[in-house]
């Protein structure tokens, strides 16, 4: 934010606008791995996550941010996943989280297919 003669600049609006949210990635992913639709955001994945012991990684948030179109947040988190698969083992809704993580990692990797 650049300063100006008034000594302040107009704050950015955090309010999320679901009308303009980009849901394409979510839809694309849900097509390949429909189980993501079953997510109830319980956070079991995040609490068991091996990586979350050391860094911010929560599939629960990935799942939400995908739906809300916060792709950058998703990108950041997904990159931290080590694919150990514990999350998938504890998911009460049998969401194939590990597959979703791989799909997303692929999405964000240079050579997609």
């Amino acid at each position: 934010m650049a300063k100006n003669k008034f000594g302040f600049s107009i704050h950015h609006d955090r309010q999320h606008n679901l009308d303009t949210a980009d849901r394409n990635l979510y839809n694309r992913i849900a097509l390949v791995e429909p189980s993501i639709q079953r997510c109830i955001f319980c956070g079991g994945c995040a609490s068991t996550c091996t990586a979350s012991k050391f860094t911010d990684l929560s599939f629960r948030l990935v799942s939400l941010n995908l739906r809300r179109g916060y792709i950058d947040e998703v990108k950041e988190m997904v990159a931290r996943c080590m694919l150990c698969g514990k999350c998938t083992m504890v998911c009460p809704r049998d969401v194939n989280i590990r597959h979703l993580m791989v799909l997303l990692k692929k999405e964000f990797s240079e050579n997609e297919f």
Partner: protein
Amino acid sequence: MNFDPFVLPFLIGMIYLLIILSWRYFKWLDELKVSDRAKFIRGIFSLNFFKAIRDVFAESLFHRKVFKVNFFLGLMHMSLAFFWFLLIVVGSFESKLFSKYPFNAPYDPVFFRFFEHDFQNFGAHGWFTFFMDFFLLVLLIAVGLAVFKKVHSSFFGLKKATRHRFVDRLARIFLWLIFPLRWLAESATAGIHHNGGFLTQSTGNVMASFMNLWYFEYPLWWLYSSALGAFFVILPFSRYMHIPTEIILIFLRRFGIKNDKEIKGFANFEIQSCSSCGICISTCQMADAAGMHGQQAVYYLQKLRFKRNFEDPVFNCLMCGRCNFYCPVGIDIAHLRDLNRQKMMPTLKNDHSYLDKEVVVQVENPVRVVYFAGCMSHLRPGTTNAIINIFEKAGVDYVFADKDGSVCCGRPMSILGATEEAQGMIKKNTEIITSSGAKVLVTSCPICLKMFRENYDLPMHVIHHTEFLKMLVVTKRLKLKKTTESFVYHDPCELGRGLGEYKDARELLQYMGNPDRTSFKKKRSLCCGGSLANLRIRADQRQKITADAFEKLTRRNPDYLITACPRCEQTFSTVADRTVMDVAELVEMNMID
């Protein structure tokens, strides 16, 4: 020399086949890396050459391995292969002995009866006609079996027969035609010239009794020759390519040539050696328990052969290695799958930089043993606690490396084909583990163990806790009592077929009692369904596999199902109707001072 235009189809077909084969084999051999080619040359002039020949008899002709799976299946394959072989060998002797010409054409043994009618002056001939007819009879029975198998595959121990492609079906028709046609052609000749044996002569007489064989004999020989020719022409493009290829493969194996980093050279021999027998289908739990089809080895190799899209069979696989074990040709399918996984998986965008920032490496005074539980073990605190208690009791000088959370060993990533991306984790873990200064690394997770052994370079013994606990008992640092409960032991894929570790767990268990007998042990053990290797399988399909495996393992109704892998433990406990536990837990229960 004998000649008649009807031999042409056969002759052309055979020449054509020989050219194709030699061209292909030369190309594939040429693809071998220099060292392997050297092995090849050396091999030819070594004892291995003869061992190979023995193998060829055992496998390609007698189909030893197939007999293991099912007697009738073995019998069928053996009769077809071995007796055809005899027909050819004995046939050529016969033609050598009785040909009226000095020069003996390659098709002589095949059409011998057509050219030679008149053997009065040779006594021994009766024996030949007898044997040749006998071989033919066996072959006809074998073809009969094959046709029968088509309708009743279960009778041959195959739950589901392979779905063949058109070329293969066509080739099979020609193959099945060859022997009946030979029979008819020879019988026709015998009907006229009385040169047949117990089979051909009698059929010939019957035929003569109601038809004018002069009209039929010649066309029949044409048909016979054409069937052969057609079969030869189609062979290189059909699964029957395995007949010649497997022989070369056996030699290469004997010469110690293995698969390389890429799918070429040796891999081609393996791929083409698959007879599509379909044994891998019924031994694949995905097909057997979960009713999934199209991903099994036979289809993967089929797709590889015919350059179809093989993405699904590559990734939609538990990589349990059962098909490897059961494959009669001994093709290393898991490896062929892995090669493509590594090739097809794009570089995954990872950011594991936090590992260096966040994970603290405690450099305390060095210990003898470093214990690495592994991510999965943290889902089974029962197991890790047991290990720690045992260590304490036995006074082991140890450090619990991943007490406050593990860094993934990297196998879950590498098994998907992203080995490179796991480097960060490998580096970090190496740092953590070596910082302990220990002589021995004990892990509870076979998945980690495999990774540590194959992708890490650790300056210490890397063993599974079963081995370590056994050692504690052997060296009397730990005493165990017999347990009153009955139990069955499940070999985890990664530990068993993956690393060949079968004995330690068993010896350890022996101190506490005898595991129930089960036919699903060691190399025959089942996958629990929890495999990390398959991302595509649905949760409900996994469930089926797990439930099925659990049912099979607990048929003798043991009190416990014992295993040595936290992942198996976790997976089984989701369907278990009885206690599932790790060997370590049982040991903890039965420790005495």
